[in-house]
């Protein structure tokens, strides 16, 4: 913690293992927009929070957090993300988990009273930057300053405008209240129904009763029509919430299928269902334009290059979040990039990723993202993504033992592919890699190549 600044007064936001924002899917939180190059300021009579204990006296309260952060807006909150520079922060270099390098802080939208645009060049101050001013209930006034203009172009203005639009929309929608409102409504309806039936039956009889009943029905219908025509998407959203509930029910069902592992028919059904669910899942699949607002690719300024890079990093983290648990669970440890492309796009369902974007994103995996997944190109030219902990290396003794045991009586790539749960092509690559490491040796005959433990080095 370098400074005592507004950023550090906010509560931390939860992140996924590869450093993406963890969305509250039980409350149907959806990612709306992401913009980089944002400065965060606080305006008020006193600092946002009391001075933390243990802070050196040289550190003073600063009203602004001067570094460039990434702003993420969801239906429930906005989150500021700051990535520590690894070089400056040696103490955190040891952690495998990337979360220590990324600091994310959130402001829940329920805390925001009012949001307005401000700033922008004018006659009086031609260099004024584009800002969003948020009046909050507990933090006085917060200001988001959009700084992307430094790198050229007027992107900061569109950044500001788009962010403002999303924030305003989210504030109007009050998505975080939907769940509780829905319950209230249900409770109200239930009580009204019981009281009305009791009331009519208690006092009215005969024709009077029929008339009253008709009247009540008309009222109900009118209310329904009004609701339907009001054009509010809220109703639609509540419907969607019901749908999500159904989906969640199926998810549990799928897990049960997988757990019981009963017969192949059930499993097939589970796989099918899982595919369907994946289509509906991954609600945070942002398109490139939503993520950064890049124009057509043929024209790229420095700023756009930066944004594209941001987008690729985000995608790389998404791929890691998606793939790491799957690879770990299946015990495969690797998957060819082509398969990743198919599976990942299948899971996204919409906003499909272009092959080029996936390639560029996955190339970033090797550049210090440290998410437990890395890209590897075999000498044959096949590109795979593999789990770091299952990667073959001279120091990975467990893998060494595994391969030596596997090939004890000689194994072809095809035979090994069964126990490695890889395609024969990838199994062959793995065996050859193990051979290069001196774990295995080969017996090449006219018909096939068989791998044996390298007894030349081990035994003889």
């Amino acid at each position, binding site marked *: 913690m370098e400074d005592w600044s507004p950023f550090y007064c906010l509560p931390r936001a939860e992140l996924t293992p590869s450093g993406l924002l963890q969305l509250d899917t039980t409350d149907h939180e959806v990612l709306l927009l992401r913009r980089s190059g944002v400065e965060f300021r606080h305006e008020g009579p006193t600092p946002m929070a009391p001075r933390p204990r243990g802070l050196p006296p040289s550190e003073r309260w600063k009203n602004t957090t001067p570094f460039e952060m990434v702003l993420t807006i969801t239906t429930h909150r906005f989150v500021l993300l700051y990535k520590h520079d690894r070089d400056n922060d040696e103490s955190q270099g040891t952690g495998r988990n990337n979360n220590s390098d990324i600091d994310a802080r959130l402001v829940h939208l329920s805390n925001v009273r009012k949001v307005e645009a401000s700033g922008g060049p004018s006659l009086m101050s031609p260099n004024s930057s584009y800002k969003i001013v948020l009046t909050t209930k507990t933090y006085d006034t917060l200001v988001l300053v959009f700084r992307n203009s430094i790198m050229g172009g007027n992107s900061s203005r569109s950044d500001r405008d788009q962010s403002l639009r999303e924030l305003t929309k989210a504030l109007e929608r009050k998505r975080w209240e939907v769940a509780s409102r829905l319950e209230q409504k249900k409770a109200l309806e239930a009580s009204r129904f019981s009281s009305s039936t009791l009331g009519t039956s208690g006092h009215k009889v005969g024709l009077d009763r029929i008339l009253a009943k008709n009247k009540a029905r008309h009222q109900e219908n009118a209310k329904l029509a009004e609701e339907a025509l009001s054009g509010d998407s809220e109703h639609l959203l509540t419907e969607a919430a019901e749908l999500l509930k159904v989906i969640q029910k199926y998810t549990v069902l799928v897990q049960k299928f997988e757990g019981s592992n009963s017969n192949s028919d059930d499993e097939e059904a589970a796989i099918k269902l899982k595919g369907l669910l994946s289509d509906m899942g991954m609600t945070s699949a942002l398109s490139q334009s939503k993520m950064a607002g890049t124009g057509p690719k043929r024209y790229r300024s420095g700023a756009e290059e930066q944004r594209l890079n941001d987008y690729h990093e985000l995608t790389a983290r998404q791929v890691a979040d998606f793939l790491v648990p799957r690879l770990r669970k299946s015990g495969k440890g690797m998957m060819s990039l082509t398969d990743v492309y198919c599976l990942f796009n299948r899971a996204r369902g919409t906003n499909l990723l272009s092959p080029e974007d996936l390639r560029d994103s996955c190339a970033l995996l090797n550049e210090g993202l440290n998410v437990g997944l890395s890209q590897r190109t075999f000498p044959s030219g096949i590109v795979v993504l593999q789990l770091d902990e299952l990667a073959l290396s001279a120091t990975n003794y467990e893998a060494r033992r595994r391969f030596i045991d596997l090939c004890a009586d*000689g194994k072809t790539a095809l035979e090994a592919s069964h126990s490695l749960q890889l395609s024969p092509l990838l199994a062959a690559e793995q065996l050859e890699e193990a*051979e*290069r490491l*001196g774990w295995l*040796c*080969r*017996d*090449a*005959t006219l018909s096939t190549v*068989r791998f*044996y433990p*390298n*007894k*030349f*080095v081990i*035994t*003889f």
Partner: protein
Amino acid sequence: MTEGDFEYPEFYSFPPFFTIQPVEATRQKQLALWRELILKYHTQNKLKTLVVHECPLWKNDSIGRKLDETAVRTVCSDLVDSGHGEWLDEEETACRILWRKPEELATDVYEWASQTGNVGGGICTLYELHSGEDVNGASFEGIDEELLRRALAILEDEGKCTVFQGETSSEDGIKFH
């Protein structure tokens, strides 16, 4: 001892032994094993030359493996490079097997001479050195004369023996100092 009595080492029935290994470090170990096998085989059977096309070592019928032609060439040139073999012809079809390198042989001969009391004393002939009764069991028993001469030349250079011209080459006399 006949060829049939030769006891093959364990690695001779290890299938990968008959495939030249592509990985450098592994191949070095493998070729060292081949050298060891060839020398042992030829020493024990008292064979002085290896005829490339006739050597039975290249093939192990019990596991159905054999070295292919390029592999045989690799093994043979490694043997020559290591100093344990010498091509007898330009076409490289036959190879003299140096059971011991001349330097090692020279040491052996001198050691034998001191043990049998020949140092500073009597004179023995070249024939006696490779086929005499006293050399029974020595590493140079039955060795090629040519090789023995090389070893003696080394000893002469070191001043440890003198070679006298005899009537025939086998009757050359050696005096150890």
